[in-house]
């Protein structure tokens, strides 16, 4: 009788250990897959001329992550006569 109880308890401990390792493995695998997916599919802003046309005076953010400094205010269209030319030199 005692041997049967011991065998049952040992079996339950093994099942419990296997379950714990399964949970750990599933959580780890999920994290790894999430990391791979986040690196493979970056978030991305799509832009085209029509989008630019609809928001000509968009307020640019103050700084970008890689060190370029952005204008406080994006250029806007103007009917005014130019005072200076920017072109290749």
């Amino acid at each position, binding site marked *: 009788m005692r041997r049967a109880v011991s065998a049952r308890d040992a079996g339950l401990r093994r099942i419990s250990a296997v379950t714990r390792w399964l949970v750990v493995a599933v959580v780890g695998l999920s994290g790894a897959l999430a990391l791979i997916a986040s690196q493979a599919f970056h978030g*991305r*802003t799509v*832009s*085209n*001329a*029509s989008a*630019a*046309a609809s*928001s*000509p*005076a*968009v307020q*640019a*953010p103050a700084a*970008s992550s*890689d*060190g*370029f*400094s*952005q*204008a*406080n*205010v*994006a*250029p*806007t*269209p*103007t*009917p*005014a*006569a*130019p*005072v*200076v*030319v*920017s*072109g*290749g*030199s």
Partner: protein
Amino acid sequence: MTAVAASARWRALGTSVVVIATQPRELTDAAARVHDVLDQVDEACSRFRDDSELCRVNAAGGSRVTVSRLFVRATRCALRAARLTDGDLDPTIGSSLRAAGYDRDFAAVRAGGPVRFVRAGGWKRIELDDAHSTVRVPAGVELDYGATAKALAADVAAASAAEGLAGGVLVSLGGDIATAGEPPDGGWAVRVTDDHSSQTPGEGQTIALRSGGLATSSTTVRRWRRGSSELNHILDPQTGAPAEVCWRTVSVAAACCVDANIASTAAIVRGERAADWLESLRLPARLVAADGEVTLVAGWPAPEAD
């Protein structure tokens, strides 16, 4: 807010200089300050005068050279440009330019024999000791700060010109523009096009700039022939050859002229990848393809309807 009132124009650093002040009485002072800054930048960074600090560093045969604080700043600026562009701008491009035939002031560059291309020396080989104001490059490596020094000069000159003066100031060096102080009513009206010196109104767009800097890089200017090759001044540091012309002209607006110029020049080198790159940086830009098709990114405005 004020209206644009007065301007001064002359030539320096091998290109045209325009200084505009919103307050006429401030123009003389502003122009004098710009003049001083440009003289200092020329003495420090010119590749075409033997007494410049840049030429002394290039000729030092690998020895360490003590330089001015301005040259340290210009070197930091050039190294930052290289870092931000993963080497698409490389201040060790000097030997590549020389090999390609751009070995003197551009006005004196003439057609010549067959060309050979030499890749840049490698910007990571520059040793800058900021604390002791020294610079060293290995023997044979030649610096050229053409991609950043003019824009840096514009930023420094505009800040200097506007300091303590009323109103606002715009400084343009060959079409690379820096602004400081209060802009005029409606902003600074700037025409962007292929060639800043063109006397005829070509394709382009007029935009209003309220702060910061604007720069345009183009493969349509500073072109010369070597053998059967037609070359332009924007070289790919990886090959030493002119960048393939995906975009003939790129204009970028940023918080300062240096960053605008770094982005516009690197965009020419980057080719097809440039539009997405500029968009990811959120730098408003106008890119003109070789066939004239225009791409606008990151909030650059569409042209006003006729």
